[in-house]
C-alpha cells in the first residue's frame, strides 16, 4: 500500500513505553507495511504524547483479523464496564 494517509485521533490516559509511563495525547492509526511484524500489511497504532517527539511511543502492529477482534473486545469491555459501573466518575483534569 505505502500510503501517507494516517488517521489521527486524540486520546487521554497513560501508556508505558521504554522510559516508563507517559501521558497520552494522540493515537496514529494506519494500515500499511509494518516495520517489524512479518506481514505484508498490518493495522498499526502508535500511541504518543507529543506527535513530533522521536522514541517515546507505544507501537503495535496487528494482523487485520486480530485488529478487528481487538476492536470488538474494546467495545465489549466498555459495554460490560459501563454496566458494572453505572455511575460515571468525573475525569480528572490532568488526564482529560
Amino acid at each position, binding site marked *: 500500500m505505502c500510503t501517507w494517509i494516517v488517521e489521527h485521533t486524540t486520546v487521554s490516559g497513560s501508556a508505558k513505553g521504554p522510559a516508563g509511563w507517559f501521558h497520552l495525547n494522540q493515537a496514529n492509526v494506519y494500515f500499511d507495511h509494518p516495520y517489524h511484524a512479518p506481514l505484508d500489511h498490518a493495522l498499526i497504532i502508535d500511541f504518543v504524547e507529543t506527535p513530533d517527539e*522521536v522514541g517515546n*511511543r507505544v507501537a503495535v502492529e496487528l494482523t487485520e483479523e486480530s485488529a478487528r477482534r481487538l476492536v470488538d473486545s474494546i467495545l465489549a469491555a466498555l459495554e460490560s464496564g459501563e454496566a458494572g459501573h453505572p455511575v460515571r466518575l468525573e475525569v480528572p483534569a490532568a488526564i482529560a
Partner: protein
Amino acid sequence: MTYRSMIAEEIFYRGHEGDQVQAYVARPLGDGPFGSVIVIHHMPGWDAGIMEIARKIADQGYLTIAPNLYTRFGTGDPDEVAAVARAAGGTPDATFVGDTAGAIDYLRLMPTSNGKVGIIGFCSGGRHAVLAASSLDNLDAAVDCWGGLVIASEEQLDENHPVAPFDMTANLASPLLGIFGNDDASPTPEQVNQHEEALKQHGKTYKFNRYDGAGHGFFSVNRPGYRAAQATTAWVEVFKWYDRYLSA
C-alpha cells in the same frame, strides 16, 4: 578472477537546500569505473531491508546510496523516526527531489564513478523513482517497483504531494523499467496499463514487466508476499536494465 569486496557505511551528504542527509552507502572496492544507483526506501522507512538491497546492487558492481528520506525527523532508531515522519504525512515531494539531486552529485563525485546514475524505489519509493526521473534531467535509468499513487486522485494529493507522477509523464527524462505484480491493489493492473499508455503516447523509453501470482512487495523476503520465482526473474531484469543504461 576478480577479488569480490565491498564497503558499506553510514554517511551524510548535502541534500535539499543544503541540508545534511543521512544515508547508507554500499559500494564495490576496486578501481571501477562503476555505474551508480540511488536506492529509495518504502514508507516504513530506512530499514534493514533497504540496506540489504543496497548491498545486493553493490555486489553486482554499482555504487549505491540509500538516503534516509526521514532525516529531518531524526536520525535515531529508524522505526521511531518513521513513526513520527508518517504521522506528519511523510517527506514533501520537493524535499525528496532536492535530496535526490544531492545524491546524484555525491555519487558522480566518487572517484570510482563512471558518471552514470540510476534510481530504484519500492512501494512509495517506486513512486519516488518515477517522480525523480520526471523532475530531474540527469538520471540515466529508473526502476519503479510497484509504486503506489503514481496515479492519484485529487483526494490523494496534498500540500506535500501536490502532483501525481503520472501527470508529469511528458517530463520523464530517463528510461523507465516497471516491475509489477498482477495481484497488486496499489497500483492495480488497470493503473499500470494506464501508465503504460501514457508512456507510449509521449514516446518514452520504458519497459513494464508484469508478474502473475505476485502482489505488492513481492521482493520482500521477510513477508508472506515474497514470491521467489517472480522476484528472481525480476531482479535479473533490473540488472539487465542497469547494465544497458549505466555501463561505462
